[in-house]
C-alpha cells in the first residue's frame, strides 16, 4: 500500500516539475529544511503538530509546494495519509489531505476503513523562522470531513456517529509560533514550536466531531522541539493535546519522537515513534492487553 502511495507521490513531483518547467516557475530559495515536513493533516509542520512554517521552499518572492505520503502502524491499526500543499510568496498556504484508517480494530461488520478529507489554509502573519528575533507566527484553519458510509449494522449511522460523535465535519482554528534558534546550545540550531488550537475533532476527525461529553470547541495546546544535528538531520519530539468529547471513547494526548532527513530541497523523509495513547474503549475490545496505541510512522515529502 505504502509503495503505491509513494508511487503516486513520485508521479506528483515529476508532473509538478514538468509543470514548473513551463510558464509558472516555482522557487526553492529558502534555506534547506526550512520547508519543514508534512503533518498527517497535510499542512507544513512535523508529523502530528503543525508549525508556522508554510509548505515548500518558496521565498517571499516565490511560490512552491509539496506532495507527501505517510503511514502510521500501531499495535492495532494502520493510518495512511496522502497530502499536497502549495504556498504563495511565503504568505499563504493551501493544503489537502486524505487520511485512511484501517477500521478492523472496531470489529464492526462491513466496515473496513474510516476516511477523512482535510482542507487547510494557513497564513503567515509576521516573523521569519530563521532571521527575525520574534518567531514566525501563522494562523490557520483546517476543515475536515469524515466521509464514511452509513452502516446497516449500526442502524444506518456512520462509525463516528455510532460512537457518539455529533457531527461528521468540523473546522479547527489554530495559531502557531515557530522559531529556529541559530547557534543555540551545543552550537546547534534548535527548533521550538508552539500551537494553540480550537477544535471539536475526535482523534483528529477520524472519529467525527463533538460528542456527548462535549459538543463545543475545546482549546488545546500542542508543541514541538527539535535540534538540527547538522543541516540535513533534525531530531525531536512533539506533543498534541486532545479534547475529551466521548463517553464511549476516551482520548489520550498524542506524542512522538521523530527524526527527519533533508538530503536536498526536493525530498525529505521522516520517521517517528508515535504514541496515540488509548484509542478504543471497553465496548470495543482490544487484542492487546496494553491499550496504548504505540507504533512507527514513516513519511516522505517531495517539494517542487
Amino acid at each position, binding site marked *: 500500500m505504502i509503495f503505491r502511495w509513494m508511487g503516486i507521490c513520485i508521479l506528483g513531483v515529476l508532473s509538478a516539475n514538468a509543470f514548473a518547467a513551463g510558464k509558472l516557475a516555482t522557487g526553492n530559495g529558502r534555506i534547506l529544511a526550512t520547508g519543514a515536513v508534512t503533518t498527517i493533516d497535510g499542512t507544513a509542520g512535523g508529523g502530528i503538530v503543525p508549525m508556522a512554517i508554510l509548505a515548500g521552499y518558496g521565498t517571499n*518572492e516565490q511560490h512552491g509546494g509539496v506532495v507527501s505520503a505517510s503511514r502510521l502502524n500501531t499495535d492495532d491499526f494502520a493510518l495512511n495519509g496522502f497530502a499536497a500543499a502549495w504556498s504563495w510568496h*511565503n504568505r499563504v498556504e493551501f493544503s489537502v489531505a486524505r487520511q485512511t484508517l484501517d477500521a478492523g480494530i472496531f470489529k464492526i461488520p462491513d466496515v473496513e476503513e474510516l476516511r477523512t478529507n482535510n482542507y487547510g489554509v494557513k497564513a503567515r502573519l509576521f516573523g521569519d523562522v530563521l532571521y527575525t528575533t520574534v518567531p514566525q507566527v501563522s494562523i490557520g484553519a483546517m476543515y475536515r470531513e469524515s466521509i464514511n458510509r452509513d452502516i446497516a449494522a449500526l442502524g444506518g449511522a456512520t462509525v463516528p456517529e455510532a460512537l457518539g460523535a455529533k457531527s461528521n465535519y468540523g473546522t479547527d482554528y489554530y495559531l502557531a509560533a515557530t522559531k529556529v534558534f541559530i547557534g543555540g*546550545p551545543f552550537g546547534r540550531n534548535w527548533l521550538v514550536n508552539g500551537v494553540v488550537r480550537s477544535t471539536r475533532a475526535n482523534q483528529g476527525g477520524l472519529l467525527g466531531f463533538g460528542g456527548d461529553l462535549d459538543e463545543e470547541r475545546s482549546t488545546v495546546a500542542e508543541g514541538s522541539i527539535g535540534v538540527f544535528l547538522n543541516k540535513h538531520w533534525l531530531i525531536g519530539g512533539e506533543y498534541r493535546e486532545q479534547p475529551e468529547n466521548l463517553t464511549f471513547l476516551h482520548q489520550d494526548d498524542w506524542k512522538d519522537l521523530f527524526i527527519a532527513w533533508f538530503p536536498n530541497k526536493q525530498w525529505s523523509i521522516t520517521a517517528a515513534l508515535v504514541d496515540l495513547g488509548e484509542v478504543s474503549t471497553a465496548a470495543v475490545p482490544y487484542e492487546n492487553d496494553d491499550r496504548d496505541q504505540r507504533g512507527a510512522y514513516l513519511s516522505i515529502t517531495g517539494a517542487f
Partner: protein
Amino acid sequence: MKQVIGMVMLVLAITGCQTRPQSALFDDLGGMTGIENIVDGFLVRLGSDPRIAAHFIDVDPVRFREKLIEQFCAESGGGCEYTGDSMKDSHAGMNVTHTDFNALVEDLIAAMEAEDVSVSAQNRLLKRLAPMSKDIIE
C-alpha cells in the same frame, strides 16, 4: 501536563549547559587564516552564483574581501575592528530580496563546509550574521 513540565525541564537543562565556557569562535573558524580562506571561497561562490552574481558586478573585490575578513574577524571575537560601511548603507538601493539573501547564506555555508568548519562554528557565525538580514533585505 507531566510531559509539558518534562519538556520545560529539558529546555532548562539544555540552556544550563550554555553557561559552560565556549572556545572562541574565532579559533574554531581557524583563526585569521581560516577566515581568509572562508572569505576567499565565499567570494568565488558569490561571483559564480547565477542567482546573485549580478549584484556584485560593480563591487571592488579587493576592498570587499578586506571588509568581509574584518567583519567576520570582529564578529567572531578575533579582536578586529570593522571599518566598512553599515550593512544598511552598503546594501542601499541594491534591491536584495529574501531569495537573494538566502542564496548568499547558502554560498557562505558552502564556503565554510569547504574549509571543514565544524557545524557548531558555522552556526555560531551565522547566529552573529543573521540579525543583519533586516538591514540587507529590502
